């Protein structure tokens, strides 16, 4: 799973969000490192919808502008949980080995 996809799914993990909300949330989650552009975001959202990992939650009109909220589907929740567990397992191994290597070096 690409990092942007992972971050978008993470942004939707605790509730439905609209496009701009996802962009700001992804920026916050990544500590300001990942700034999604509108084109990239909607390409990803379109793919995630086709893969049935996210769905449209609701639509609102705010100040004459359309806001469409997206939410995770059960399949999307499972996929994100699996990916998070996989990344966590890899990170744990990496950290353990780094500590081990550091211990041996000193």
């Amino acid at each position: 799973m690409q990092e942007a996809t992972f971050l978008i799914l993470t942004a939707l993990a605790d509730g439905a969000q609209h496009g701009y909300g996802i962009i700001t949330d992804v920026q916050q989650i990544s500590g300001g490192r990942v700034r999604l552009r509108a084109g990239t975001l909607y390409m990803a959202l379109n793919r995630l919808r086709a893969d049935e990992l996210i769905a449209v939650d609701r639509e609102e009109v705010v100040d004459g502008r359309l806001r469409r909220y997206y939410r995770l589907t059960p399949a999307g929740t499972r996929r994100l949980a699996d990916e998070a567990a996989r990344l966590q397992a890899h990170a744990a191994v990496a950290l353990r080995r780094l500590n081990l290597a550091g211990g041996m070096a000193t």
Partner: protein
Amino acid sequence: MTGQEHLERAYRRLPGWYPREFRREHGQEILAVLMAGAPDGQRRPGLAQSADLIRSGLWLRLRPSVPRSARTVRAAVKLMYAGAVASTVNLILLLAVIADVKVYHAIFGYHLTAAQASQLTTQFITVSVLWDLVPVAVRLWMAHAAGRGRNWARIVSTLLFGAATLNLTGAFSWLPPPGIHLTLVPMAYGPALPVLYWLAGLAVVWLLWRPGSRAFFRPPGYTQAQHQAQTAEPGHQAQMAELARVRARLPRQV
């Protein structure tokens, strides 16, 4: 006109790069995101922002939109694109070889004089390039159409595979000019390549007609949105109707 109106007008033009269906569905929404993210006082779309919209618009026009649930169709479309790439590589190899027509004909055991070779070169290159571009174009077209759930693409692909099978067995060798042209390039490297092409074609046809592909291919007029609505979870159709009502209240479409 204020700076913001100016910016909005410029942004309204950019979704033109997207496919019509996508623009209708997301145009307003993307515009809202662009306007929300624009810093105060901005009058023109940023270069990077515009490039990103154009890039994703073009990508959405070109790529197949097969959902993950239609696994067999996804695999078939990928194989068809791989076939188009292989045909292109074939063409490049061909161009490299026919730069020297004498060498090329030597493969077949023909011996040409310099005058004959130069006379043949232009005609030969033109015919060969056109001949090799046809399968590339057809493969791309079929992959694109099948990726959009067009049932006719599945039927045409199957008929073309039938023709390729006859071709492989030499059924067209009577065609002028020397029928060998039909399989000329792959055969130059032995029979392995055309057989590989044929096996890939067989896999495509098999995948396209698997029971799992049936739901994806629908009669004309049946859109992918309808497909998604039908395969979605219960209650989704009521939700879609509600969305349609909300959308009807919008000021105007991009």
